[in-house]
């Protein structure tokens, strides 16, 4: 009971705020303070979603497939690379600056290069998402593996555990908290980069749909796609949190949020 009331109290202010924003927005469009072909009314967007949901669903599924493929690929690459860098200090020293440098190249530049190299299929798009995703995951994994409680490490050493046993029983479990922070960041990155990837060959997917609708001066459709992208991002974030809660059960509830 107590919890439910607290939940409502924390939800109420943002809900009111959003309602105010949408109302003002709706009124601005109604009184024609902006061109309606530039910015649609919120109700218009909802109406568009209700009418065109079948088409939207199709595009959403395509984007979702791309996102999940890229995110999982990025997660596997990031985690594996994190482990390799953790085990081989020399490679870590050599790779770390290169990794950080590589992150400063804008996605917008990489995307067309990938397309030119690999064509218009699924592969270059998935690769783009992997490239964007693996970095936060790799860094989080590496940080997590390095930040082991010294008392526990000393204990494991004293009882004669091997390097591998320390990794499996100590470092890997301690890294999970940090790893999941990285996965959550990567989850929202992956949706956005899927959309960018779809701009390249706008056949299917929310990104393509957005571009085509924008070119056709159909702002309701553009905003409908944006809304779906935001929701997808939240959905992925929630899914990752769910997996974390299932996997990391040893922490007291308060911390486990």
């Amino acid at each position, binding site marked *: 009971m107590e919890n439910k009331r607290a939940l409502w109290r924390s939800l109420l202010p943002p809900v009111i705020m959003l309602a105010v924003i949408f109302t003002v927005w709706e009124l601005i469009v109604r009184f024609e303070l902006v061109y309606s072909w530039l910015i649609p009314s919120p109700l218009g967007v909802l109406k568009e979603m209700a009418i065109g949901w079948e088409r939207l669903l199709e595009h959403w599924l395509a984007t979702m497939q791309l996102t999940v493929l890229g995110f999982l690929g990025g997660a596997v690459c990031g985690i594996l690379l994190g482990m390799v860098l953790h085990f081989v200090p020399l490679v870590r020293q050599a790779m770390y600056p290169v990794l950080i440098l590589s992150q400063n190249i804008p996605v917008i530049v990489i995307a067309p290069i990938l397309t030119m190299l690999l064509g218009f299929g699924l592969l270059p798009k998935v690769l783009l998402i992997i490239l964007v995703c693996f970095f936060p995951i790799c860094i989080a994994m590496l940080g997590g593996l390095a930040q082991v409680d010294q008392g*526990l490490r000393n*204990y494991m050493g*004293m009882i004669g555990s091997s390097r591998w046993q320390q990794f499996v029983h100590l470092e890997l479990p301690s890294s999970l908290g940090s790893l999941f922070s990285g996965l959550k960041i990567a989850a929202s990155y992956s949706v956005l980069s899927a959309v960018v990837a779809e701009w390249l060959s706008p056949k299917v997917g929310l990104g393509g749909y957005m571009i085509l609708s924008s070119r056709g001066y159909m702002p309701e459709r553009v905003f409908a796609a944006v809304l779906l992208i935001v929701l997808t991002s939240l959905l992925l974030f929630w899914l990752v949190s769910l997996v974390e809660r299932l996997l990391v059960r040893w922490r007291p509830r308060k911390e486990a949020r």
Partner: protein
Amino acid sequence: MLELKGLQKSFRSNGTVREVLRDINLNVMDGEFVSIIGPSGSGKTTLFQLIGGLQQIDAGEIWLDGVNISGQKGHIAYMPQQASLLPWYSVKQNIALALQISHVPKSTALKQAEQWLQQVGLAEYANEYPHKLSGGMSQRVSFLRALLSPQKLMLLDEPFGALDALTRLHMQRWLLSIWEQHRRSVLLVTHSIEEALLLSDRIIVFAANPATVIDEIKVPFARPREGELWSDSTFNELKQRIYEQLDA
């Protein structure tokens, strides 16, 4: 069974050399409970790390059961000051893990852990995660974990140092009662003179900077021991003697 022969250890930092251990000679017999007592920073933890094989010895040798184990890992059971239970494993799994690392098959290890938890009245905690345990409980589990490990020598590194006085007293008696039923060779490091007198067969007094052995005391009390030693006059004489040595 354990023999330390002329152990030396120094640490180098920023060009200065700090001598931590100087010519440490001591031994622990089969089934004997030996305590090392000394001022803070007298290198007792370093000594344990040498015996555990975590640090390299500068000079000297460590022998266990007639085998030179200098610089080798995995020959001792260990109970640290912080319980050091892995938070992601249940109490039972934590105990079993220590045994597994000492090459006990997993199923045997789990069975043994369960049996012993039952025996010492901790069965209800077997499947709990460590964060649910109080400090005293954690240390009981930590002790049990060391006791069940197959190695013949147990190193206890200030095992009750982080507990409040009352819990500490309970824990000492608890450990004593279990150990007296299941004798193992023990080397204990402690700051507490009473603790050393209550638990040990022999006490080795260290001086600090660098650590050297300055006294060795045979504790004359018969076993099984009770908590009433406090009022014994020999107890207080020995306490006085050690106190003066540490204070000097």
